C-alpha cells in the first residue's frame, strides 16, 4: 500500500557542483574517529581508558551516562590512538589507528524475521547499530527502553546537492530488506519509507513497509515533513527515524554477525574537484576523500549539506550521520552597495528583491557570506513559504527564544527538529539562527519535560 505526499511549500536550491553517479573505491584510510558531539545530549562514559588499547570492530568505545544500553562501538579494528578533549575535558574525538584488515567482535548471525523481538532489539543496540536510530521528539539517539510508535525512513533526499539514496543502495537492497525485517520487530506500529514519486525506485520491491510516494521541493525529503503528513507526533509519542544506508548496515550485521558501518559519501559543491561517490566506513577523515589539502581561507569544507552540515578543518573527520561532503567558496568579502535591490542577481534569493527568481532553472555558485547582518524580526510570511507543516514558524521560534514551555508545546515543538528549520534559517530576512533556536528550545523541553 502506498500513500501520496505532495509538498507545495518549500524551496529547491539549485547549486552548482552535483556529484557524478560514479562509485569510487578508496584504499583504506589509516585512521577513523567517532565524535561524541555528533550524538546530541549524550554524555559519554568512556570504556577505553588508555590510549594504545587494542580493539576489534564492534567493541564498545563509550556509552551514554544516562543509559548504559545506548552504546557506541568502534567502526574498525586497531589501536586507540588518541582521545581528543576540549574545554572542561569534554570528549571531542576518539581516534582509532586502523589495522590493515579488520577483525570483528562476533555478535552471531540471526534471522530477524524468525527471531524474538527482544533478541533483535538487544542485538541492534549491543552491536552499536542503535546509534543509527534517532528519536523524535528532540532529535536524540534512540533509547532501547522506549518503544517507538512508528519507524520512518526517508529514501528521498531533496537537500541541495544531496547524495542519491537510490544510487547508494542499489547493490545493498538485500541487506536493506533484512534491516527492515529487524526494524519491524522494534515497533508495534508501522515502518514507513518515503520514496521518490514517478521513478522506478529500488525501494518499491521492499516488503513489509508502508510506502509514502513523495513529490515536491525541499524539504519534501526531510523525514520530519513525511512524519507530519502521515502521523504527526503528539505529546507523549516516540518515533524513530533512520537513514536508508544504516538500515542496510543493520541488515548486514544480522547476516554476518559483524558491525560493518559502511558509509557511501558524495563529494559535492562548486569548489570540489573529484565529485564522485566514495565508499568508506563511518568516521573516515575528510582528507582521505578529498585527496589534497584544501585552502580553508578560500574554501569551506562542510560535513553534510550546505543547510545543516558542520564546518570541518582539513585534518578532521566526517560526522557520524553525514553522507556528503560539500565544498563551497568562503564569502569573506565586502560587496559595494550590495544592499541595493535588483543588484548582484547571481546570488539566489527566495525573495523577489533579487532578479534571480526570474531564472528558476539556473544553477548558482553560492558562498558563505551572510548577505547582511542580524536584525529584529520585521518581515512576516516568508518563513511560512518554506515550511510545509501546519506550524507557525515565527511564533514557535519566539516561544523557543523566550523558553515558554506551554507555548512551545501548543505550537508543535514535538513535531520539529533543527533540520526542519534549515530553510527557514536560509530565507529569513533578519538572519536569525533558526536551527540553533529550535535546538535550544528542544533542550529546554528535554530538561523540563523529559
Amino acid at each position: 500500500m502506498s500513500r501520496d505526499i505532495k509538498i507545495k511549500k518549500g524551496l529547491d536550491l539549485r547549486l552548482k557542483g552535483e556529484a557524478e553517479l560514479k562509485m569510487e573505491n578508496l584504499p583504506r584510510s589509516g585512521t577513523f574517529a567517532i565524535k561524541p558531539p555528533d550524538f546530541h545530549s549524550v554524555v559519554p562514559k568512556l570504556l577505553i581508558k588508555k590510549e594504545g588499547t587494542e580493539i576489534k570492530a564492534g567493541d564498545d568505545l563509550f556509552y551514554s551516562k544516562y543509559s548504559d544500553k545506548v552504546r557506541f562501538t568502534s567502526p574498525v579494528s586497531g589501536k586507540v590512538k588518541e582521545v581528543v578533549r576540549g574545554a572542561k575535558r569534554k570528549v571531542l574525538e576518539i581516534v582509532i589507528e586502523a589495522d590493515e584488515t579488520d577483525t570483528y567482535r562476533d555478535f552471531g548471525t540471526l534471522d530477524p524475521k524468525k527471531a524474538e523481538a527482544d533478541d533483535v532489539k538487544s542485538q541492534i543496540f549491543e552491536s552499536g547499530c542503535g546509534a543509527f536510530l534517532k528519536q523524535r521528539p528532540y532529535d536524540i539517539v534512540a533509547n532501547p527502553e522506549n518503544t517507538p510508535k512508528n519507524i520512518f525512513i526517508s529514501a528521498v533526499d531533496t537537500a541541495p546537492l544531496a547524495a542519491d539514496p537510490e544510487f547508494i543502495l542499489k547493490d545493498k537492497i538485500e541487506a536493506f530488506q533484512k534491516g527492515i525485517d529487524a526494524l519491524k520487530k522494534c515497533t508495534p506500529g508501522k515502518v514507513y519509507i518515503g520514496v521518490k514519486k514517478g521513478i522506478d525506485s529500488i525501494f518499491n520491491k521492499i516488503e513489509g513497509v508502508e510506502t509514502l510516494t513523495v513529490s515536491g521541493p525541499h524539504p519534501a525529503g526531510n523525514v520530519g515533513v513525511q512524519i507530519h503528513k502521515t502521523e504527526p507526533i503528539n505529546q507523549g509519542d516516540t518515533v524513530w527515524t533512520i537513514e536508508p544506508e544504516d538500515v542496510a548496515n543493520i541488515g548486514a550485521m544480522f547476516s554476518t554477525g559483524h558491525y560493518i558501518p559502511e558509509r557511501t559519501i558524495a563529494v559535492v559543491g562548486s569548489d570540489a574537484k573529484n565529485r564522485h561517490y566514495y565508499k568508506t566506513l563511518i568516521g573516515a577523515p575528510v582528507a582521505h576523500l578529498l585527496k589534497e589539502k584544501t585552502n580553508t581561507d578560500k574554501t569551506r569544507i562542510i560535513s553534510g549539506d550546505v543547510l545543516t552540515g558542520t564546518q570541518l578543518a582539513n585534518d578532521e573527520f566526517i560526522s557520524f550521520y553525514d553522507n556528503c561532503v560539500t565544498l563551497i567558496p568562503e564569502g569573506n568579502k565586502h560587496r559595494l552597495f550590495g544592499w541595493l535591490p535588483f543588484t548582484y542577481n547571481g546570488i539566489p534569493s527566495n525573495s523577489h528583491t533579487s532578479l534571480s527568481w526570474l531564472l528558476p532553472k539556473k544553477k548558482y555558485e553560492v558562498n558563505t557570506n551572510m548577505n547582511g547582518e542580524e536584525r529584529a524580526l520585521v518581515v512576516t510570511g516568508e518563513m511560512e513559504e518554506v515550511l510545509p507543516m501546519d506550524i507557525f514558524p515565527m511564533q514557535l521560534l519566539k516561544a523557543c527564544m523566550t523558553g515558554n514551555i506551554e507555548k512551545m508545546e501548543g505550537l508543535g515543538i514535538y513535531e520539529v527538529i533543527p533540520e526542519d528549520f534549515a530553510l527557514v534559517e536560509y530565507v529569513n530576512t533578519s538572519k536569525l539562527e533558526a536551527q540553533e533556536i529550535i535546538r535550544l528550545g528542544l533542550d529546554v523541553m528535554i530538561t523540563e519535560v523529559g
Partner: protein
Amino acid sequence: MSWLRNKIDEVKKPFGKGEKFEKYAPAVNALDTFLYVPDHTTKKGSHIRDAVDLKRTMITVVLALVPALIFGMWNAGYQYLSQIQAEVGFWEAIGSGALRIMPIIVVSYGVGLGIEFIFAIFRGHEVNEGYLVTGLLIPMIMPVTIPLWMVALSVAFAVLIGKEAFGGTGMNILNPALTARAFAFFAYPTYMSGEVWVAESSSVDAVSGETILNKLAAGKEVAYNSMDMFSGLIPGSISETSAICILVGALILILSKVGSWRIILSGFIGAAVMALIFNALPSMGIEGNDLTNFVWYNHLIIGGLAFGIVFMATDPVSASQTTKGKWIYGFLIGLLGIMIRIFNPAYPEGIMLAILLMNVFAPTIDHYVIQGNVKRRKKRIQESSEVQKQAA
C-alpha cells in the same frame, strides 16, 4: 575600489572590539553598511544565506514610494503655482514643490535617524533599517504647509513613544509614520485641516485649499472629475493624491513580495464593500448625504485611503503576522476607513484612524488564528488517546 575599503577599515579601527570608542560602533557600522555589505560569514547552522536582508527590503519600499513622492512634489508645485499664474511648466512645478518638500524630508530623516542612532548606541545593537521607510513616509502624509518644527516634534514623538518605548524596531504596536501624523493631527488640528493643502492658498481669493473630503463633508460642490482624482491633480497630503502612482508603488511591493498582496487586496475589498453599502441607502428609502452618495469607486481613489492601504497597512511589524489574520486585518481597515470617513466628518480622513485601530487589534486577530492551530493539535492528542483506549 579597494582603497575606499581600506580607508573605511582604517577609520573604523578605534571603534573595534576592545578599542577606545567601541560603544559607538553601531553608528559607524550603520554608515559602513550603507556602502558595503559586510564580509561576515556564516558560523553555524545553514552555511549559505539568501541574498535578501532588511536593508534590501526597506530600500525596495523606498523605491516603491518614489513615483508617489515625485508626483507629490510636482503636484504641490502645480497646485500652488496654478492659483497665481495661468500656465505652469513641468520643471517649474517640480522645482517649486521640491523646495517646500525637501526640507520636510531632511528634518524627518535628521531627527528620526538621530534618535535611532542614539538608541542603538545606548542599547548596544546595530541600527535597524526600518526608519528608512518611516522617515520618508512621514513627510509624504503631511500637508505641504506644515511648519518644520512640527514635523520634528511629530517624528520625535513617533520614534520615542511609538517605537523605542516598546523596545525598538520589530516590537512597536502602532505604525510609526501614522503615529507621527496622528500626533500632529490631534496636537495641531488647525495646521492639519481646512485650507492647508495648497501652499499659501488663503492669500489668494477664490481658490480653495480644501480637500475633496472636506468639501463633501461640508456639502460643497466638488469641481474635480474621477480622472482628476485618479491621476492625483487635487489638493491633499503631499503624496497621497495620485492613485496611479500609488498603484505603481503597489505593483512594486507586490511583485517584489515585500508588501503583502493579501492586505492590499482585502483592504480595497473592505473599502468597496462599505462604500457600496452606503451607496445603496437611497434604494432602501434613506436619503443619505453627499458623502454616502459619493460613488463607491471614487471613494477608493480620494483621500489617503489608497496610500494608507498600500504603504501603511502593509507595514509587517504592526500588521497581522498570520496569513489568515492578514485577510481579516486588511478587510477591516478598508471597511472601517470608509465608515469613519462617512460617519464622522470631523475627521477628514478615516483611514489613518482605521489603520491605527487595527494595529491595536492585529495581535488579537493573530491570537485567535494561532489558537486555532493550538486547538487543532490538542484535539489530535485527544483523538489519538481515544483510539489507544479503544484498542486497549
